[in-house]
């Protein structure tokens, strides 16, 4: 076990592609850290550099305080779980899991014992003599995990280990990966493009975009205090709503009506030297049916009335979707997020808004509703560079 430090680590592929740029990251001993971002943002490249499967172009990688840039993967004592599982098809489950131990010239009795232990933890005991081709996806995934844990490595690296499973199994495996990591207490770097996995699994999350780290922090912190538009739009499902807005002597004018900034927000905005034109971001849960809001809060928040486009009742609460006419918030970050989500080619002009209302709301699909939002929860972004103007490191 050991801490892993990336010190200005950069990767330039031989074809000139700059895949990872000056990543600084300190991973504590025993920490579960997630690299997340849209596909092509350099997550796998970063992981492969830690593994030693890709050379580091620039910067330094230290494991347990030691520079390992020049070390071969086998000398780094790190185990890896691949997206494709990469099980050896000509070996049985048992031989697959024993392979790292055999290479390390561990004696037979110990190999037997360790494989048996790992198989018990992963519930693979009755499959030990089968070949990978006869196993289900979930079982293969567990064998891959087993092969990683048998030799108590310094760290685990996992590259989208659950993305080949179907949705239900993925949720199950997610909890068992989390439990396993807590149980073993081994430093783990986990790559995913799924923000739900990132939010639920990690102690800390690293959000990447185009080879550059956007923000590092605990999942809740990233959710509450995204450093920029990209993180704000990437973390959270359904995603944060973005609306163009104008700042004018302490009030905020937008298609959702005018609101007076709360003192907290005004101070932050003034401190951040905000431009006049901004992008306003509001999470779906910060909206409410105006009829259900107390009078005091009602007057301090923003209000707008519009026809409900679609209403989904989830039992515990209701999601009301609106389609407002107006210019969409425009920025490079939002475009990239839309492209990644595949929604950039969904037809429809105007601003779509997702709001989460309590189940007591009387909103009806097709009818107009008055919706309130919490002015203190508004986040403002600079459209030119995506910076969060209301960011605080609390």
């Amino acid at each position: 076990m050991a801490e892993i430090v990336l010190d200005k680590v950069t990767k330039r592929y031989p074809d000139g592609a700059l895949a990872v740029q000056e990543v600084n990251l300190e991973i504590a001993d025993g920490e579960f850290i997630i690299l997340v971002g849209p596909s092509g943002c350099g997550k796998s490249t970063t992981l492969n550099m830690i593994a030693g499967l890709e050379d580091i172009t620039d910067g330094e990688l230290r494991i347990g305080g030691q520079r390992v840039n020049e070390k071969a993967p086998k000398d780094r004592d790190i185990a890896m779980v691949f997206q494709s599982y990469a099980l050896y098809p000509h070996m049985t489950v048992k031989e697959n899991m024993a392979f790292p131990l055999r290479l390390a010239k561990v004696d037979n009795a110990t190999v037997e014992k360790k494989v048996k232990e790992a198989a018990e933890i992963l519930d693979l005991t009755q499959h030990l003599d089968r070949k990978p081709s006869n196993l289900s996806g979930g079982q293969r995934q567990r064998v891959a995990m087993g092969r990683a844990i048998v030799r108590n490595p310094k760290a685990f690296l996992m590259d989208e280990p659950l993305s080949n499973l179907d949705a239900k199994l993925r949720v199950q495996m997610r909890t068992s990966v989390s439990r396993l990591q807590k149980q073993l207490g081994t430093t783990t770097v986990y790559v995913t493009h799924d923000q739900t996995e990132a939010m639920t699994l990690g102690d800390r999350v690293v959000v990447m975009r185009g080879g550059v780290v956007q923000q590092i922090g605990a999942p809740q912190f990233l959710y509450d205090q995204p450093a920029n538009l990209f993180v704000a739009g990437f973390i959270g499902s359904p995603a944060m709503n973005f609306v163009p807005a104008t700042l004018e002597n302490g009030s905020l004018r937008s298609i959702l009506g005018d609101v007076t900034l709360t003192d907290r927000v005004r101070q932050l905005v003034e401190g951040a030297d905000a431009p006049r034109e901004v992008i306003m971001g509001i999470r779906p849960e910060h909206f409410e049916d105006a009829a259900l809001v107390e009078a005091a809060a009602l007057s301090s928040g923003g209000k707008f009335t519009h026809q409900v486009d679609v209403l989904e009742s989830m039992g515990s609460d209701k999601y009301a979707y609106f389609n407002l006419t107006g210019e969409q918030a425009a920025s490079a970050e939002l475009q990239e997020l839309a492209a990644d989500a595949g929604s950039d080619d969904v037809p429809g002009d105007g601003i779509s808004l997702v709001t989460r209302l309590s189940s007591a709301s009387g909103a009806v699909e097709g009818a107009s509703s008055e919706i309130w939002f919490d002015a203190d929860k508004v986040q403002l972004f600079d459209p030119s560079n995506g910076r969060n103007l209301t960011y605080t490191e609390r």
Partner: protein
Amino acid sequence: MAGIGGAETPAKKWGWGVLNTVVVIYALIPVLWIVSLSFKSSKTLSDGNFIPREWSLENYQNIFSTSEFTRALINSIGIAVIATAIAVVFGTMAAYAIARLEFPGKNLLVGVSLLIAMFPQVSLVSPLFEIERSLGLFDTWPGLILPYITFALPLAIYTLSAFFREIPWELEKAAKMDGATPGQAFRRVIAPLAAPGVFTTAILVFIFCWNDFLFAISLTSTEQSRTVPVALSFFTGSSQFEDPAGSIAAAAVVITIPIILFVLFFQRRIVAGLTSGAVKG
């Protein structure tokens, strides 16, 4: 198999069955004819019966009675085995590099080997003859092994690189992560998976060398290095008036046996290789 023609109706099954039988019979009749000829005595050789009226081993005794055939057999086996071994070893290395590595001149290498494979061999016969004469390679084993390797290598590289491409690269990365040196990763993970491909290639190359007539007849002159296909063409009867057809038939049967053994011996591995390549797990 299923899915070739959609649903399997009984009529379709019958149709395929009949077609298969016809093809197999068409292919086997000449072979059976040769076998039949080889067991006929010289008197009944030309009686036109498909099944010999009296079975005799006369022809087999004849061909093994002189050194002419046995010597050729030894030459054939030796030359084909050596050429196959060398071509497969170098072919494996080259194919692995082509499938896995990016290096300058890679496309050139592939292009040149394709060019060699397509080159009409007959046009090389006279230059090779001259070259080997002046180098003292004419009528020696190396004199045949070298051109065989030249033409077998592209074949080996092509089949093997197709097999290597089928092996997921991540397996090798996984082996490295599990603590293997590049050598160990190759020996314990890649080689076992590539084995069916190597055997298939070995068989193809062996058959190519075993069957060659063109180089063998042009680049040899004596029993010292004459291979079986050539020796066959030099068969004469014991007298001027005797028909050597019986001996030729017997020799033809004998030289088919190694190939059949070779294929039967490796068959299971080949089939396993072909299907593992076709069905991605």
